[in-house]
C-alpha cells in the first residue's frame, strides 16, 4: 500500500533529520539510506529532497560542508546541529503522540 502524499510530505523533514542524526551524509546517500529503510513502503522523489535539505540548513537545523566522499568524489555533507537534534526529538515526540492517539482510537472499543 502506497501511503498518501501528505503523510510522506509530513514525515520527510523528520526522516532526514533522523538519518543525519545517525551519521553525517550527503543528499544521494541520505535518500538511498531512507529508501532502503522504507523497503518499498514509499519511494521519495529524489529531486524534492534537496529543497528540504536547503531549508533545514537555512533554519540552522543542519549545517553543510563540502568534503571528499567514500567514493572519492566531492560531495556536500550535511551534519545535524544541536537545534536539529532538539527539533528531531520534538517532532518524534509529536509524531508518537499522534501515532498513539490514532492507534488507540482505531483499536478502541468503538474503533
Amino acid at each position, binding site marked *: 500500500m502506497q501511503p498518501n502524499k501528505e503523510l510522506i510530505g509530513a514525515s520527510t523533514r523528520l526522516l532526514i533529520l533522523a538519518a543525519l542524526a545517525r551519521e553525517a551524509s550527503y*543528499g*544521494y546517500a541520505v535518500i538511498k539510506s531512507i529508501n532502503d529503510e522504507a523497503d518499498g513502503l514509499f519511494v521519495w522523489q529524489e*529531486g524534492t529532497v*534537496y529543497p528540504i535539505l536547503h531549508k533545514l540548513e537555512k533554519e540552522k537545523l543542519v549545517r553543510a560542508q563540502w568534503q571528499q566522499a*567514500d*567514493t*572519492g*568524489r566531492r560531495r556536500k555533507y550535511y551534519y545535524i546541529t544541536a537545534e536539529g537534534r532538539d527539533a528531531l526529538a520534538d517532532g518524534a515526540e509529536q509524531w508518537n503522540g499522534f501515532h498513539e492517539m490514532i492507534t488507540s482510537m482505531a483499536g478502541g472499543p468503538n474503533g
Partner: protein
Amino acid sequence: MPRIVLSSTTIRVGLLMDNQHLEPALEEEARALCAQITVAHDLDPEIQEELYGHVEDKILGYLSGEVPVTGDDAIILVREHFGDARVIKSLLQDVHVTEVAVSQWRRYMAATIAMLACSLAGAAALDAVVLVIAFFDMSLVLAVWMTCAIGIMTMLVPWAIFVYWRRILRAGRRPWYYRWSFKILGAIVLSLALSKMFLPFIMASGPTYFLPHAFPGSNHLRIMSIIGAQTLLFLQCLSWIWWCDAPPRTGRNTLNAAWAWCLIYLFLSALPRISLVLSDTMESVPPFERVFYHGTLFGMSANWTMPVFGRSFPPMGRFGTVEIIIIGMVAAFVYALSTGAVKQIRDGLTR
C-alpha cells in the same frame, strides 16, 4: 580506473570504485540536466554542483548495477527508446486509415443499438406505467413523475453504456461490436427498429387517467419540462460524441459524430408507431378506430408523432428537425472546446 563508456550501441561497465567518474559526453548530459533544474531559479553554482553529484551517483549506480532498475525505471527507458508515442500513433493512423474509418462506423452502429435498445425499454416501461395507472386509477401526479423518470433514464442509460464500453476498450478487450459482422449489427438495428414500430404507444384517456398528449399543470411546468427535455437531448448528444471520439480527433470526426446522432435521432423519431388509446368516453378517438374487446373500449391508430414529455410535434417537420440539428451542432462545438479539440484540430490543419 574502470571506464564507463556510454555510446549508442554498447555500455562497458566496470566495478564501482573510488574516484570513478563519468565519461565527458555523459557528464555533459548530466550537467545539462542539472542546469535545466537550476537555471530557472537562478541558483548558484554550488547547488548545481550538489545536484550534479546526485545525478552522477545515480548514473554510476545504474551502470554498475548497484541501483536496481525498478519497473517504473524500465518503463521510462522503454518509452525513451521507443520514441514519441504521439508521433508513432499519428504515423500508424496514416497507414491504417481504412481500419480507423471502419472502427468509427462500428462505434456508430454500437451506439445506435444502445440508443435503440434504451428507447425500446423506455417505451415499454412507459406503456407499463400508463396501463397500471389507468387500470388502478392511480394519481396523475405519480404518472407525470414516473414518465419524467423513465424519460431521463432513457436518455442517460446510453451514456452509462458508453462509459462501460470505453472501459472494456481501455482494458484491451475487443467487444462484440468489433467481432460481429456489419450484417449482424445491421440486423440487430433493424429488428430493434421494427420492435419499436410495433410496440404500441399506449395512452389513457378519461377524467382521472393520464393522457400523455395533454401535459397537465401550469405553463411554468410545461416550459420547465421542455427545457429539461432539450437539456437531456443535449447531454445525450454530448455523450454520443464523446463515445465516437476515437483518434485521430479531427474537426471532421467530431462533426460527423454530431451529424450521425442527429440522423439516428430523427430516424428513431420518424418511425411510425401504433397508438393504443384506453378510453372511457372515446372522445379523443375517431369512431372508425374504436374497437371493443372483452367489454373494454380500445382505440387504435397509426401516427407519425413523437412524444417528448407529453409534447407532440411532427419529428420530420421543420421545427423538430432544425431543433435536433441545432442541439447536435452546439454539442459538437461545446465538446470541441471542452476537450481542447479546437486546438488539436487547428494543429492538425497546420501540420
